[in-house]
């Protein structure tokens, strides 16, 4: 279970969001929505341990995230969380395969067989040797999704995964995220304005940031 209590975040004295409380049970999903600039991406960073909240706590089952040391937070993120960033955050100088391998290494696994299965499922097995910088936006998004599911994560965070995709690719990526999260029995926490995504994914919980504020 993911429990957020009284979560607030300020930048230079300006409150971006405050007093956010929610719970997500195992294998349940959460949609985070709200107007631009309200702090959705920052909230995602805070949930993933990339940015320390000004106030509040985050607990993954029995683990209080920000009571851990920074190194333990990094290790926890590598093993328990999968993140699909809005800007993909892939290593452009690496091939698709190398991007997945480095994530596999970070997670601490030596076994690479499952990487090929994953590439097969996202439809990039025949392009695994191609550098990420040479891929289309849709292909990069698929690599980012594949990478997020390495290491059997229990929580998947996606930040606007379809913001720059056409309808066809939106369907592909959204279904991919849905299938993989079901396959891994992972909870999905997703930020999107995209009604197409919301129609495909059946969210158990919706957090409207503007309303909270």
């Amino acid at each position, binding site marked *: 279970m993911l429990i957020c209590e009284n979560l607030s975040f300020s930048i230079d004295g300006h409150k971006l969001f405050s007093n956010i409380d929610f719970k997500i049970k195992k294998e349940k999903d959460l949609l985070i929505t709200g107007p631009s600039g309200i702090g959705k991406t920052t909230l995602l960073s805070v949930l993933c341990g990339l940015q320390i909240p000004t106030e509040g706590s985050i607990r993954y089952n029995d683990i209080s995230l920000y009571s851990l040391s920074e190194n333990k937070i990094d290790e926890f993120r590598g093993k328990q969380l999968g993140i699909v960033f809005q800007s993909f*955050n892939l290593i452009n100088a690496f091939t698709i395969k190398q991007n997945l391998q480095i994530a596999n290494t970070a997670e601490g696994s030596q076994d690479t067989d499952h990487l090929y299965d994953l590439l097969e499922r996202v439809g990039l097995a025949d392009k695994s040797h191609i550098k990420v910088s040479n891929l289309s936006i849709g292909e990069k998004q698929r690599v980012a999704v594949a990478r997020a599911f390495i290491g059997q994560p229990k929580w998947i965070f996606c930040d606007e995964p379809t913001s720059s995709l056409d309808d066809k690719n939106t369907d592909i990526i959204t279904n991919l995220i849905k299938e993989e999260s079901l396959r891994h029995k992972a909870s999905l926490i997703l930020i999107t304005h995209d009604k197409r995504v919301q129609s495909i994914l059946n969210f158990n919980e919706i957090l409207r940031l503007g309303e909270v504020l």
Partner: protein
Amino acid sequence: MILGVTIITLSVLVNQITKNTFTKNNPNLDVVVGAKGSPLQLVLSSIHHIDIPTGNISYKNAKKIMKHPAIKFGVPISLGDNFQNYRIVGTDKKFLKLYDAELEIGSMWEKPMQSVIGSNVANFTKLKIDKFFVGSHGLIDTGDIHSEQPYKVVGILKKTGTILDNLIITSLNSVWNLHSNQNDILKKSDSLEVTALLLKYKNKTSVFSFPRLINKNTSMQAASPNLEISKLFKLTGGAHKIINYLSIIIVSLSFAGILFTLLNNINERKYDLAILRTLGFTRERIFSIILIEGMTISILGSFIGLILGSIVYKCIEFFSLLGRNIVTGQLDFIYEILIIWFVILIISFLTCLIPCIKVYKQNIRNTLLNS
């Protein structure tokens, strides 16, 4: 890095081995007496066999000096010929005792024109027991040979690690015999000459008085080997220091190069390093990756430099006169080289820490946002 360490290694090797060689070549002799001229030249020619002799002195006077109350013992030497650039030294058997020389094979000379040869001479010239060879006039091979009177090899000495390894030793009579057309001249001892007299005092109180006695009252000169060699090192020390400073500057520049390369790499890859953090790489792990990267460059560079410096030195040793007349393969320098390498690695480590700390302090979120 490679160039800097190569020069440092070469400089240390040449310096250490030259010093060691000059030390080992002198079997604790206190003074050398020879013809007037440069005292350094006398020492270099009669003990280290590098320079040409200052001239000859009367054997009769030499014998008188050897009987002087201040002298414990003396060894006369007579130079003048060579075989393939290896000097032929006419002397008596005490000369070999100075270096604790032992025969590897064969026997000592008993008759004129018999010789024993040093181990390097045997290796390089392929001379063997019972083989004959003809000396050339002078101290370098000019082709002006004494073909009428060849030498016979009767013994080969064990390696001593001194100049003795590069010498051909024979009796004084052999040298006198070769340089006189009249056999009866051997009977006229008044006209016999030697090149120098190697002497040891009975006690150290004669250090000042005996040379003064020789220099003031005779047509000969007395020179202290230790004093002259230390003067030589003072003269050449300046050039050696310049080479050392130069190599320190080059190594410092290579440290700066490593530092800027790593900083530049980190700057270019800060986005990728931040991605690694999002994937679960800890700060310590990334710190280690950058440190290993920098230290690999340093270790490889300095190791290659060490090997190259040693190879260049070995080439110099083999091909040059340095190899023939000075260096005889001591290994005492290794300790100093290892210390230098160790110091270089410590400085490399400290240099690499700067970019590592920069990475350690990196804010992932800001880096990802800024890129």
